C-alpha cells in the first residue's frame, strides 16, 4: 500500500506529501482498512455467538477449553504488541539494528502464538471436535482461524520487512512503514483480546 500519487509538486520528499488534512495518505488508508476489518470480525463473532450453544449431543465449548493455556498464549500475543511498540520507537530513532531486532522478536512471539493455536486445534480435534462436527465447532474454528490467518500474514510481512530494511529496500518513509505495520499488529491483538473474552472466558 506504500504508493502515493504526488498531489502538488511543492514537496517531493516521500511519505510526507502535502495533504488537505495533514494526515499521510498511507496512514489514513490503513485506518480505513482496519475500520472495515472491524466489521469482518464483527460478522464472524456474531455468528459464533449465535451458534456457540448449537451442538446438540456433541462436544460443547466448556468441555474442550483449556483456559490456562489459552491465557498464556494470549499473554504472549499481548507481549508481542509491546515489542512492536519498541520496534516503532527504535524506527523513530533511526536505529535500524533494534528496529530489525524488535520486529523479529515480534514476529517470533507471533509465531509462538500461532504455534499455540495449532497445538490447541490439534488437541480439540483429538478430543473429537472437528471443523464439521457441529455448528459450534464450525463457527469457532472459522472465527479463530480467520484471526490466526491475520496473525500469520502479519508475521510474514514483519519478517520480510526485516529483510527489506537490511537490504535497504523499503519504499517510502521507513518510519511510517514500520508504524503502519504496528497499527495492523495492534489491531490484530485487540481483536484477539475481544475473541478471548467473548469466546473463552464468558461461559457458554
Amino acid at each position, binding site marked *: 500500500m506504500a504508493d502515493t500519487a504526488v498531489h502538488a509538486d511543492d514537496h517531493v520528499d516521500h511519505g510526507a506529501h502535502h495533504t488537505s*488534512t495533514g494526515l499521510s495518505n498511507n496512514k489514513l488508508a490503513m485506518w480505513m482498512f482496519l475500520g472495515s476489518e472491524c466489521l469482518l470480525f464483527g*460478522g464472524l463473532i456474531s455468528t459464533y455467538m449465535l451458534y456457540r450453544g448449537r451442538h446438540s449431543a456433541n462436544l460443547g465449548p466448556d468441555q474442550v477449553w483449556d483456559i490456562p493455556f489459552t491465557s498464556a498464549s494470549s499473554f504472549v500475543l499481548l507481549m508481542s504488541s509491546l515489542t512492536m511498540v519498541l520496534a516503532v520507537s527504535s524506527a523513530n530513532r533511526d536505529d535500524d539494528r533494534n528496529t530489525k531486532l524488535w520486529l523479529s522478536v515480534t514476529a517470533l512471539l507471533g509465531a509462538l502464538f500461532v504455534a499455540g493455536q495449532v497445538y490447541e486445534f490439534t488437541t480439540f480435534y483429538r478430543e473429537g471436535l472437528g471443523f464439521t462436527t457441529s455448528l459450534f465447532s464450525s463457527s469457532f474454528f472459522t472465527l479463530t482461524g480467520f484471526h490466526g490467518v491475520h496473525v500469520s500474514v502479519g508475521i510474514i510481512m514483519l519478517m520480510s520487512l526485516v529483510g527489506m530494511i537490511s537490504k535497504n529496500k523499503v519504499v517510502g518513509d521507513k518510519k511510517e512503514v514500520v508504524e503502519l505495520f504496528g497499527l495492523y499488529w495492534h489491531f490484530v491483538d485487540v481483536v484477539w483480546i475481544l475473541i478471548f473474552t467473548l469466546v473463552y472466558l464468558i461461559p457458554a
Partner: protein
Amino acid sequence: MAIIERPSDEVEVVDQSTPSEATPESSYGVFRRPVETTGWKSWLFTIDHKKLGIMYGVVAMFFFVVGGIEAMLIRLQLAGPNGTVLSADKYNQMFTMHATTMVFLFVMPMAAAFANYFVPLQIGARDVAFPRINAFGFWAFLFGGLFLNTSWFLGGGADGGWFMYAPNSSVAFSPSNGVDFWGLGLQITGIASLTGAINLIVTVINMRAPGMSLMKLPIFTWMVMVVQFLLLFAMPVITVALFMLMFQRSFDATFFTVEAGADPLLWQHLFWIFGHPEVYILVLPSFGIVSEILPVFSKKPLFGYPLIVFSGAAIGFVGWGVWAHHMFASGLGPISVAAFSVATMAIAIPTGVKIVNWTLTMWGGKIKFTVPMLYAVGVIIQFTIGGLSGVTHSVAPSDTQQTDTYYIVAHFHYVIFGGAVLGLFAGMYYWWPKMFGKMLNERLGRVNFWLTIIGMNLTFGPMHIIGLQGQPRRMYQWTENRAGEGFFNIGFWNLVASIGTFVLALGVLLFFVNIYVSHRKGTEKAPLDPWDARSLEWITTNPPKEHNFDRVPQVGHLDEFFHRKYEDRGADGHHEFHQVATAEEVLAEEEKNADGHIHLPSPSYWPILLAFSLPIMAYGVIYNLFLLLGGAVLALVSFYGWGLEPHTAPEEDYDPPTGTSMEVASHG
C-alpha cells in the same frame, strides 16, 4: 511518464513514449517498468485514473449488454403462459445471473468509472491517492466478472437467486458449481470494491485542491464519498457470509445445515446487512450526477446544497438500520418487524428531500433541455414513482402481500433503472465531451432518451399490476388458471412488459449507434465548455492532460468554474450576472501559470498480475487445491514485487531519459 519539465507540450510527452534502443543509462532486466503513454501497453499497465475510468466504463457497458440479453430471455419466457423458451433450470440461472450481472458488474462499476474519472478532476487532484491500487481494483473487477461468467461454460450459472438464500444454496439443492462461481466471483469483485473505496475516501479527504473545504466539494464527489463509506463497511459483512457459503459448499462446514440446528435466517441477516446499503451504493452516485447536471442547465446553484449533502449522509447512516425490511415475511418477531417498518419509513424523508430540492433547483431557473438534462429530469420522475411504491411496502403488513411478487420487481426497477441507470446515462451524455473531446449527437440522444423512458415504463409499469394480481417472482412459468380475466388479467400485462423490454433494448442500442455516429471521421471536436458548466473538471482541456491540471486550481466558491466565468454586477440586493471570461480564457490563465515541475507515478504491471492471481485461486478452490496454492504464490510474489517497486520508474527507464528528478533520490 514521470517528469514533465515546463514548458511542456504534448509532443514531448509522446516522444518519451516511443522507445528506442537500450542505452548505457538504460535500466536492466524484466524489471524495467512499462512507461508507454500510448498504445495498448499504456492501457494494460496504466495507473492513470482517467484511462482506468474509461476501461471501467467499457467493461461495465459490456456486462450491461450481457445482463440485458439475460433479461430479454427472461421476458421472452414469460411473454405467454407456460413459456418454453427456457427450461426451469436455465430460467433460474438466468434471473440469478441477470441480477448479479446488473448489480455487481454493471451499475457498481459504471459508477466506479465516473468516480475514478471525475473525482480527482472535481477536487483538482492529479490522480487518486493510490494509483496502483486503483489499477488493481479495475483488473480485479474485470477478472472477477469474467470468472463469474465462465460458469456458463462449466456446468451452468448460479441458480439460487442473487440473494442466494440458505439452505437452497447448499450442495444438495444446487449441485452444479454455479453457486461456487457466484460466491468466489463476488469475493473477487468485492476485493475490488473495498480497495477502490479506501482509495477514493483517502483521495477525497486528503487531496482536495487548496481552498476546497468539504462544504465546497462538488455534490457528485460528496455522493461518491458516501457510497465509498457504505462499501467500506458493507463489503466485509457479505465477505463473511460468502466465506461461510464457501466453507459450507467446499469444505462441509455446517453453518446452514439445518439438521445440525443451523438457523437459515443467519444468512438472510448477513446478506441484507450488506444488501440494503448496496441499494444506496447503486443509486447515490447517479443522484450525485443528477445534482451536478440540474444546476448547470438551470443556470442556478443546487438548491439547499448542505441539505442534499446531509440527506445523502443520512441515507448512508439510516441505510444500515433498515435491512430487515427485506425480511418482513421471513418470520421475525412482530416487535422487530414494527421497528424496521418505522425505520424504513424514516428513510423516505431524506430521499424526499432530494426530490424536492432538485425540483426547487429548476424552479426560477433558466432551463435548457439538452439530452443530459432530459435524463436528469427523467430520473426525478421515474425515481419518484419507485420511491412512492417503496413507501407502500414500508408498511409491513401490506408488504407481506407484495414482497416476492412482481410488484416488488416493478418497485426496484423503477428505483435502480429509473434512479441509477438513467442517471448514469445522463452522466455519459454530460461528460462525454470531457472524456473523449467529441459531443454525442443531440438528436439521436433525444430519440434514445424517449425510447428508453417509454421502454422502461412499458416494461416495469405493468409489473405493478401483475404483482398486485398475485403473480410471484422467479416463476419460470405462469398459467392461465391463475391469470384472471378483464382489464387487469396477468396474461395481457405480461405480454406488454415483454414488448416493453424490446423497446428498451432498442433505446440502449441507439446509444451505441450514437457513439458510432458521433465518432465518425469529420465530426468536429467538442467545444471546451459545451454546457457552460460550473465545476472544476471543466477547467482543463477535453480530454484532460495526463496530469489533469497545469496548475492546481485555487478554489474560492462551491461552483468555482462558474464564478470564474460570471460576475455579479448587481447592486444593493439586486443581482445581475455578466460573463466576464470564456472558458478558453480561464484555461489560458491556468496554463500561463502552470506548475514548474509535475511528476506522476509510473505505470506498473504488478496490479494486473496480482489481480490475475485471484481467479486462479478461485478456480483452485472449486477444482484443485494445488491450483489454489499456485495462485497464492503468484499473489505473494506480485504483492512483494509491488511493495519493492518505487513509485516512479528510475530515469533510465525512459528513453531518451528525461533529465533528473528528486524522485531518483527516493529509491533508497
